């Protein structure tokens, strides 16, 4: 058994207690004041050098026995605006907020990994940088941490997501695309209102909006390679106020997803082209706004290999799993632009112990064995990266 595994087992109760404490006091994105306070407190207890960064984030450093590389380990700390419907002893005490995505587990696991690494810091050279990041759910936290120096002098970065759609005991840290990019677009169509019985005197925004929706269907089906999985969805279409009044304007909002920067970088232009030309056809005008929320999360080959070997050491070959990439997004992707990286899915589904509910559901809960694996994996990955 590796030292890391041994220590992870030793600190299991600590990890679970920590997770439950965070679970009871969830805080909204970018408002994780008490959460970051608790993180600092725990790190100070361990005598680990740490500081508050970006208002509600924390960066800590554990130095090894000599000079070497720096590996960053990242955990997100924010909760969601969801009303918890679990009846557990550690149910959320903060009305309308819930750790419905597992970030409480990430925070607890990384703190445990800090404890482990601190215990054995003379067994590696270089340093481990711990990034406790706010606002993942609003895709703002990573960017803020990076602006505040999170990636300075960092040679590699590793992140984990506890994952309810993967069996507990399994871990996926495969190479290649793991999570998708996410873009957000909004379209304001300007037609010309008028009486519903005299359409020729105006420009019908409901018609124009509909033509835009239909035309946008061809983006994925016709303009992107079938081998490049992509999505373009319109989630909101609101137009008009009265049945007999022709709508003068329409508002649409939607999202794009893909796994490849080349495709990702084409979305904005394609959407603008289709929207503008469709509007022109009907003598309408449009304002299109496009926002890149996150880019694709793509694991580097050698980082993935380090991850898989770390999993083998902790749980054996059986634990190394494959998991189909998901069209969900992660702002972890922003750390990966110029830094070697890997992102792991640590399975937490166990219907014998916990009823299954998907992430973000009001009854979401995890098999806490996943915390044991996560804390071990953070630490093992760090050591293996630094010792390579």
């Amino acid at each position, binding site marked *: 058994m590796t030292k890391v595994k041994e220590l992870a087992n030793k600190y299991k109760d600590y990890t679970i207690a920590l997770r439950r404490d965070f679970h009871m006091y969830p805080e909204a994105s970018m408002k994780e004041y008490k959460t970051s306070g608790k993180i600092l407190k725990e790190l100070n207890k361990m005598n680990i050098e740490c500081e508050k960064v970006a208002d509600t984030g924390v960066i800590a450093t554990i130095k090894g026995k000599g000079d070497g590389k720096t590996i960053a380990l990242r955990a997100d700390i924010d909760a969601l605006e969801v009303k918890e419907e679990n009846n557990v002893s550690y149910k959320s005490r903060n009305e309308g907020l819930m750790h419905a995505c597992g970030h409480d587990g990430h925070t607890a696991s990384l703190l445990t990994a800090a404890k482990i690494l601190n215990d054995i810091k003379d067994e590696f050279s270089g340093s481990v940088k711990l990034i406790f990041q706010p606002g993942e759910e609003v895709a703002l936290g990573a960017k803020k941490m990076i602006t505040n120096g999170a990636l300075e002098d960092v040679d590699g970065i590793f992140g984990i997501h506890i994952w309810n759609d993967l069996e507990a005991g399994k871990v996926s840290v495969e190479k290649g695309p793991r999570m998708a990019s996410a873009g957000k677009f909004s379209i304001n169509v300007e037609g010309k209102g008028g009486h519903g019985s005299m359409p020729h005197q105006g420009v019908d925004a409901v018609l124009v909006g509909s033509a835009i929706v239909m035309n946008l269907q061809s983006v994925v089906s016709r303009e992107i390679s079938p081998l490049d999985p992509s999505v373009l*969805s319109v989630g909101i279409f609101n*137009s008009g106020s009265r049945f007999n009044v022709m709508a003068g304007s329409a508002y649409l*909002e939607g999202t794009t997803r893909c796994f490849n920067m080349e495709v990702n970088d084409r979305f904005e232009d394609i959407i603008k082209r289709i929207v503008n030309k469709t509007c022109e056809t009907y003598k309408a005008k449009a304002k299109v706004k496009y926002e890149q929320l996150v880019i694709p999360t793509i694991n580097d080959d050698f980082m993935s290999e380090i991850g898989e070997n770390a999993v083998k050491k902790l749980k054996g070959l059986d634990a190394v799993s494959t998991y189909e990439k998901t069209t969900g997004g992660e702002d972890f992707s922003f750390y990966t632009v110029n830094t070697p990286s890997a992102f792991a899915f640590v399975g937490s589904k166990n219907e014998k112990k916990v009823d299954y509910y998907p992430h973000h559901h009001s009854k979401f809960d995890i098999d806490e064995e996943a915390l044991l694996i996560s804390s071990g994996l953070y630490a093992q990955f760090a050591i293996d990266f630094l010792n390579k």
Partner: protein
Amino acid sequence: MKYKDLLEKQYDYILNLRREFHMYPELSFKEYNTSKRIKEELEKIGIEYINLTETSVVGFIKGKGEKTVALRADMDALSIKEETNVKYKSKVENVMHACGHDGHIAMLLGASKALYEIKDQLNGNVKLIFQPAEELVKGAKKLIEKNVLEAVDGILGIHLWNDIPSGKINIEKGARMASGDYVKIDFLAKGGHGSMPHQTIDPIVIASSFIMNSQAILSREKDPLDPAVFTIGKLTSGTRFNVISDSAHLEGTFRCFNEDTRKRISKAITKYAKEIAESFKAKANVNIYKGTPATINDEKCSLIARESAKKNCW
């Protein structure tokens, strides 16, 4: 006295009455005081009347003959804040006779006064229909259900019309105003995450497809010489950019001048909505609420009206 002179005598009466009604407008089915005033005037003249419905007034001038002609005026006002600065401006907050119905009541009372004076010269009877709730497209129907048209051989209505210059009267045979029906469509689909469309059935795509395809009902399935219009004025679906909603709600109107066309378009709208929904594995709830039929002037009556107008214009 010539009828024309008799009518001229009523001018001040009609003008003052119109201004009075203009100052005290009442909403559809709530024309309580308006109704009371009409009854007062009819009593003063000596004309019998009955209620039939809560605020309607149906008067009767008995002449010497079998035929009965009905004359109709509507009574209701609108939820509009008057912004004119006339001395007879509405005294009721946010209610206004913004469609001329105040004028219609006054005109019919004036005509009633004149007709009563010469009732012995009339070759039949005159039924005076003061009708509520025209703006809701409900008032006429209610009166008809109460048999207001029993033993009526013909009916004339008038609308003051601001899009025609004063001094001109338009009475033509054939279709004069369109039928209007209210369309409500709900597409029932399946919501889910915007990044996994295959797990959903997307109501925005269905609604858009319906809007695009239904253009063909009028452009391809209808005689070009038969005017009709179909407008969806309101479309709402979805609350978040990254969530596929489970439904889309549409409201619209369709108008035409021919009962046959009206039936066919109604069927076509329903068919398109249901079949398009089905093609996406969704469902459509279509509700078409019939409004008024088209107003089509009878040829004979139009001729009579045109002659009458010629005789009495000054």
